[in-house]
């Protein structure tokens, strides 16, 4: 019986899960690294445990410390969110071994899907089509590069290098020319080791001009495994999604049925439980290939929630509690679009940016949902992923959803830190986005030399007048004091308060 959930995550997804617990009447515990004190998610939890340590490895990835926090607070379940420990079968085993409920699939299912090679084999056996490719597992470091080179030769160019236990674009490199292979392979391996502690690399044929379509699945312990339709997430930069929508703009009911059935078959093949996503590449030919299964809640789950009316996180809680899921037959209504708001310089190869969120005013009005982990006055630091928030809109039709997204992005004011808001706004006016003909190479095709904000001399001049005028009027003297104020130091009683009274 789930009565108190520890959320082993931070930022916007921690906020999402903590609010769901609060609505469900379930107690909640947040964990918090010292540099996250004062973050929004810590305010939404019933209790907060301050972790010891500095790096991510010492805090949000420290399994022993997290399980101890659950035990000291009397939490009986752990929700991993996404990223961090969410796809570590070993952690899921640890959680269960300590008598806690793991909100997610079994460690066996995570293992089978987490290892790209095993997943491919399992899928092939279940009759789900997979992309041609192979994995290189070479213990001798000196020989790895050679082995990778040979495998690349067999798979053929263009190809994609992926960390075997990766995700989120880390350790991923596209190689179009054999001459670039060595440098790309070394970088991919280094990133893979740094991010996942596992340098195995998987080489896959790169299917250019394909769409990235994924199917959300839900499975409970009462024998029910269903899908909630598709999301199209083709628009990616650096292999990371930035623009996601549901339903897919070119999807047909027949294809949805076929892909949905394949996704359900994939989940059933590993006795899946909870929420998961089966990712496919949809080729221009109409064929689709299994890419991987994400055995956790996904960043872009809100678009599915808005068009299906299912609260996926709430269903996760129900399923983990042994209840049947509450949603009925699939019923897709209207259209939802999500954009990911990053602190990054889109005009400079999407370089992550940092700074204070001196002004942070999200758009308002009907049909807009903002899943944020930050608020005005917060600092964006280099310690974590630069995703600030997700802006999601819903409207009765795709064209209205795009109109709403344009309006919402125009209204969004963020000052003090460079963000990709203008890039996202331009994306909404790009022809492939308007057509719904986006593929995984759309951004590279639209801006082969990188994106730059459109020049508008009138606005630029006006902005100069504003800067000069604001200085003249002394607006900076009326401003709220900056971001240094009120920061709670590591010696603050905040830490001990939560430990003293679990």
């Amino acid at each position, binding site marked *: 019986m789930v009565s108190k959930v520890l959320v082993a995550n931070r930022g916007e997804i921690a906020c999402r899960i903590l609010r769901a617990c609060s609505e469900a009447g379930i107690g909640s515990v947040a964990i918090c690294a010292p540099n996250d004190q004062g973050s929004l998610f810590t305010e939404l939890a019933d209790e907060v445990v301050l972790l010891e340590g500095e790096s991510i490895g010492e805090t949000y990835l420290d399994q022993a410390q997290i399980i101890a926090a659950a035990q000291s607070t009397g939490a009986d379940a752990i929700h991993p969110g996404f990223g961090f420990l969410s796809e570590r079968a070993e952690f899921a085993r640890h959680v269960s071994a300590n008598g806690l409920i793991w909100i997610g699939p079994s460690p066996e299912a995570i293992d089978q899907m987490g290892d790209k090679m095993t997943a491919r084999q399992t899928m092939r056996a279940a009759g789900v089509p997979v992309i041609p490719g192979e994995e290189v597992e070479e213990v001798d470091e000196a020989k790895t590069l050679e082995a990778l080179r040979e495998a690349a030769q067999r798979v053929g160019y263009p190809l994609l290098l992926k960390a075997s236990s990766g995700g989120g674009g880390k350790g991923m490199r596209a190689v179009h020319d054999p001459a670039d292979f060595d440098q790309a392979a070394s970088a991919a391996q280094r990133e893979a080791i740094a991010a996942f502690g596992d340098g195995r690399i998987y080489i896959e044929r790169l299917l250019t001009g394909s769409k990235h379509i994924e199917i959300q699945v839900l499975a409970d312990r009462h024998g029910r495994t269903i899908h909630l339709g598709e999301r199209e997430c083709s628009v990616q930069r650096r292999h990371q999604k930035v623009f996601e929508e549901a339903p897919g703009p070119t999807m047909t009911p027949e294809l949805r049925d076929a892909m949905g059935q394949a996704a359900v078959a994939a989940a059933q093949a590993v006795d899946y439980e909870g929420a998961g996503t089966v990712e496919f590449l949809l080729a221009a030919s109409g064929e689709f290939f299994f890419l991987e299964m994400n055995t956790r809640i996904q960043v872009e789950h809100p678009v599915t929630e808005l068009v299906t009316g299912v609260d996926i996180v709430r269903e996760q809680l129900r399923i983990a509690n042994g209840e049947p899921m509450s949603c009925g037959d699939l019923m897709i209504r209207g259209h939802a679009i999500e954009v990911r708001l990053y602190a990054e310089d889109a005009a400079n190869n999407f370089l992550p940016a940092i700074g204070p969120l001196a002004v942070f005013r999200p758009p308002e009005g009907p049909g807009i949902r903002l899943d944020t982990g930050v608020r005005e006055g917060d600092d964006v630091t280099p310690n974590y992923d630069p995703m600030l928030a997700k802006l999601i809109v819903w409207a009765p039709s795709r064209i209205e959803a795009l109109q709403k997204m344009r309006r919402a992005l125009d209204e969004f004011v963020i000052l003090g830190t460079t963000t990709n808001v203008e890039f996202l706004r331009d994306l909404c006016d790009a022809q492939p986005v308007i057509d719904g003909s986006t593929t995984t190479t759309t951004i590279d095709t639209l801006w082969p030399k990188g994106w730059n904000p459109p020049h508008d001399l009138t606005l630029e001049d006006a902005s100069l007048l504003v*800067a*000069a005028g604001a200085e003249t009027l002394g607006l900076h003297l009326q401003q709220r004091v900056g971001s240094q104020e009120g920061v709670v130091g590591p010696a603050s009683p905040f830490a001990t308060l939560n430990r003293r009274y679990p």
Partner: protein
Amino acid sequence: MQHIFASSEGPIEVTLARNGEALQLSGYSLTQHDRGRLLVTLPNGGKCIAHATKVGDIWWVHLNGRTYRWERIEPGSSSARDEGGLVAPMPGKVLDVLVRQGQSVEAGTALMVLEAMKMEHRIVASTDGRVTQIHFQAGEQVAQGAVLLDLEEAE
């Protein structure tokens, strides 16, 4: 009411005229609307609401969905723009140094690999030139804005 701002083409001098409550600049007009918000009238009569806030020396301005940054130069201070140093765009760790001191490089040559926010970033030469000094070695932590290498521009 004269201000100097930095731009890629050198400093810009801006002199505002006051007309009643409005501040004016060649056809543009500005009045204060509400806390942190300003009302701008464009030469064609169009108007828009601007948000402005100052962080350090930089005015951040939001106008019609676009965001602009203007670094204000205090009268008398010198700009640090033209020193030829390649600076760390954000705090991080040096993963690899790809050049030697004294090496001649072309614009675009990768000089250093930096890790920040769990991603690798390459520091590339901004012009043709010669590396005169390397300030950090692989494994060292760098602060944002730290000068990583000095590059002497080729004549």
